[in-house]
């Protein structure tokens, strides 16, 4: 059962805390991390406190889940760790969304002295960041229940055991369900301390590592799952924003009279970078959008921008310009000496185009103000509820308490939904209109006003020493977007190169940019592993052997390479017309190695990926089935961008407009087989939402070389580029 509500959490936090029956465990944040406390103490406390777990006399256990759900299963995966240590009966567990309040529900990030809380589900963080806190909270609640039962039976707590939702006294055969205990027990003023030694041993796990059906699936197969686009409010009207064809241009004027005369049109609202049309129905909004003609102020940075030209001519110049604006990303040893003493130097340049998130649900939000205009209610699907609420408050000049936030399922996120520019638009329109508004961007708007994964040029050089070992490494990435360009550029998590210099060289085009699933890893690993493959080939070595003998690999890397070599049965010859390619995958603490098997239609230039194998070290796998699914999803997402996806800008305008010219992978292009294996680990869970896509680019390019003897240096590998490469 899941109580994830469409219109607001039916049970507000206050009600949750005020419940008179059962046991409620509140949760607070302190500099040392989050901790559980009694309800009484929570109410008396002078700071923000929220409920986290509640046990009802009917034996249901309610757990708030902070795992924003965009398809990756974290809504289920995060609370599983708590339920495990609590020894809860999963069938009796009810999940509710945690409110948008990171102070209470956020995970704790410690960076040096700085401790912060965030609910942002980005960088594959959900399970990884909440896991320890969740386990501790579950163990504490269990201990409270054990102590209460021990007192009741007048026995030592050590004599007691638990079964799912039941405390048992084996000596006497007595049993009490958690619900029964909840009728008489009290939450102590101070929660009992638990040490990690008291945590369950892996062999005792009933939930972690076991396939647990995702809670969101039943309602996603019958149309009842609610996304923000589905919200219906009394008196609600519809809006859509038209943004400048050149991103971030400001509107000057438009054919106001004509549009206002159109059927159903209620208002037209000017926004900083767009004009919103509002009408009684969405079909009237769409009609008005078509007629609306806006003239845009000159002077937007992106004006005249030609992305293909920049990538072909401007970027190579920046790469060699000593005065270019640069950031050193990584440095070790004496790289100049390594190159000076090299017996061989290999060099290659790689390019990648802009990528669009193309989350299936076009961006939208619903906003409603109260009559006094001093409080707004927001319905949206966001990866970062806390930040979203804060940004809305800021945009409206409100305090946080004036923003009531309702979280929804997301029809995909992929990094796009951790910035809520669309929600702010909805709020501003609702304020101007004094009516509840559902604001929906059309697909065309979502794309043209997209926030893209930046395009990049990568220039790499590698030095081999007298023994043929990789001794020096230079990698320069050129483009717009700062750290959006260099995440994943460092290879020290898998290869230990003694002398290296890694830098980013920046420019700026005025195009909106954003994290995209695995951010910069997909294109950085394309370059790193592309060059690795090229060196192996030129040294006359098998790609696995080259890495093992010539590159100092980390132990973790060795293990994933060994595993995928076995899985894919690498040494065995493939049928004619098929070939294999290898690459490493690295992201959010996880490490993997992957192999793909491809074929090629020489006539059309279409590459087909038939099989994929990937071996991953992701620490403890909390939910293996979900984890596997996430990796498969990442592989398809990655493959889509490798084979098809490219956004380009000409005269400052995004040239693609919908799925006919921004093509994504379809069923007929998906691999027939995907094999995912996780190494058996007891270490903390690491991120898995994005480990599926970083390896795929280089793996496909390397397989293409194995098949044709030619190399692909520019992703995506569109048929046109493939044919060009074949002729080269």
């Amino acid at each position, binding site marked *: 059962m899941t109580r994830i509500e469409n219109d607001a959490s039916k049970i507000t936090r206050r009600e949750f805390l005020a419940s008179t029956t059962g046991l409620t465990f509140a949760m607070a944040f302190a500099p040392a991390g989050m901790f559980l406390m009694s309800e009484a103490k929570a109410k008396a406390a002078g700071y923000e406190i929220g409920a986290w777990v509640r046990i009802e006399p009917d034996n249901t256990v309610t757990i708030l889940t902070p795992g924003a*759900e*965009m*398809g*990756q*299963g974290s809504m289920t995966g995060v609370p599983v760790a708590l339920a495990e240590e609590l020894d809860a009966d999963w069938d009796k567990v009810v999940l509710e969304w945690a409110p948008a309040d990171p102070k209470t529900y956020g995970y704790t990030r410690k960076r040096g002295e700085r401790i912060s809380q965030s609910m942002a589900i980005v960088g594959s963080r959900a399970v990884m960041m909440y896991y320890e806190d969740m386990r501790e909270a579950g163990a504490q609640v269990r201990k409270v229940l054990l102590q209460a039962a021990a007192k009741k039976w007048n026995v030592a707590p050590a004599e007691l055991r638990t079964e799912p939702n039941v405390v048992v006294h084996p000596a006497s055969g007595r049993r009490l369900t958690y619900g029964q205990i909840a009728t008489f027990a009290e939450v102590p003023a101070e929660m009992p301390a638990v040490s990690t030694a008291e945590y369950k041993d892996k062999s005792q796990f009933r939930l972690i590592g076991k396939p647990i*059906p*995702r809670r*969101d*699936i*039943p309602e*996603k*197969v*019958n*149309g*009842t799952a*609610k*996304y923000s*686009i*589905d919200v*219906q409010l009394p008196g609600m009207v519809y809006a859509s924003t038209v943004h400048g064809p050149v991103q971030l241009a400001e509107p000057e004027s438009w054919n106001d009279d004509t549009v206002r005369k159109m*059927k159903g049109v209620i208002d037209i609202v000017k926004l900083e970078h767009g004009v919103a049309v509002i009408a009684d*129905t*969405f*079909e009237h909004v*769409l009609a008005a959008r078509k007629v609306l003609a806006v003239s845009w102020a000159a002077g937007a940075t992106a004006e005249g921008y030609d992305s293909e030209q920049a990538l072909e001519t401007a970027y190579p110049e920046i790469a060699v310009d000593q005065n270019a604006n640069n950031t050193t990303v990584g440095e070790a040893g004496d790289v100049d000496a390594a190159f000076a003493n090299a017996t061989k130097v290999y060099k290659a340049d790689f390019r990648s185009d802009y990528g669009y998130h*193309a*989350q*299936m*649900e*076009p961006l939208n939000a619903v906003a409603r103000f109260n009559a006094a205009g001093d409080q707004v209610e927001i319905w949206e699907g966001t990866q970062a509820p806390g930040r979203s609420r804060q940004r809305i408050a800021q945009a409206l000049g409100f305090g946080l308490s004036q923003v009531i936030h309702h979280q929804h*399922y*997301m*029809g*995909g996120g992929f990094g796009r939904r951790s910035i809520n520019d669309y929600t702010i638009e909805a709020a501003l329109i609702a304020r101007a209109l004094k009516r509840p508004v559902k604001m*929906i961007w*059309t*697909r065309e708007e979502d794309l043209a006003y997209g926030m893209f994964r930046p395009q990049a040029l990568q220039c790499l050089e590698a030095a081999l020493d007298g023994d043929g070992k990789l001794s020096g490494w230079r990698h320069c990435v050129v483009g717009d977007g700062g750290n959006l360009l260099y995440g994943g550029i460092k290879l020290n998590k898998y290869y230990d190169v003694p002398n290296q210099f890694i830098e980013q060289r920046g420019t700026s085009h005025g195009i909106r940019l954003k994290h995209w699933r695995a951010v910069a890893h997909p294109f950085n690993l394309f370059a790193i592993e592309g060059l690795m493959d090229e060196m192996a080939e030129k040294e006359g070595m098998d790609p696995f052997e080259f890495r093992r003998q010539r590159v100092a690999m980390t132990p973790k890397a060795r293990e994933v390479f060994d595993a995928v070599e076995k899985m894919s049965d690498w040494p065995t010859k493939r049928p004619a017309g098929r070939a294999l390619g290898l690459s490493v995958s690295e992201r959010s603490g996880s490490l993997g190695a992957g192999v793909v098997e491809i074929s090629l239609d020489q006539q059309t230039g279409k590459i087909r990926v038939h099989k994929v194998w990937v071996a991953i070290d992701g620490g403890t796998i909390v939910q293996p*089935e*979900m984890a596997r*699914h996430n990796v*498969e*999803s*990442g*592989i*398809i*997402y990655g493959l*889509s961008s490798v084979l098809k996806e490219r956004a380009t800008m000409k005269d400052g305008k995004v040239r693609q407009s*919908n*799925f*006919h010219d921004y093509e*994504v*992978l*379809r*069923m*007929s292009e*998906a*691999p*027939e*087989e*995907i094999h995912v294996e996780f190494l058996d680990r007891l270490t903390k869970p690491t991120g898995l939402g994005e480990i599926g896509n970083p390896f795929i680019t280089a793996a496909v390019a390397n397989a293409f070389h194995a098949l044709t003897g030619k190399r692909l240096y520019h992703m995506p590998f569109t048929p046109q580029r493939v044919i060009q490469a074949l002729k080269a």
Partner: protein
Amino acid sequence: MVSFYINGKQASVNAEPATPLLWAIREHLKLTGTKFGCGAGLCGACTVHVNGKAVKSCLTPLSSIAGKLVNTIEGLSEDSSHPLQKAWVAEQVVQCGYCQSGQIMKAAELLKQNPNPSRDQIVAHMNGNICRCGTYTRIIAAIQRAAREG
């Protein structure tokens, strides 16, 4: 005003004849299981049945369905008991879920025409439906399961 049947019940929608069926279903009739993905017939998120045939409702004008039988995901079964819905749960197909109403409606048309489709037939039939989360292999497995288990 256009009248038709939706999930077995009579419905009238007060909108211009050119209004896309999608918006009539979602915002006039408040059946929000049918989704808006592209508005241009390119993704299949808006797939519904009209007189038993799967159509992209974003490209279907209201005028064309007068008097016809429209079925949406909400009408596929009362209680998620359609073989495809059961298979979708059993195979844990779904990620974000946004495309899945359309996928299931499209697959339902296939099984009606061909209770035992081959893998290639499934792919050919389903290729117009995008799943950005990449659940394709699981969709195929679920359709095969539904065909097997009925």
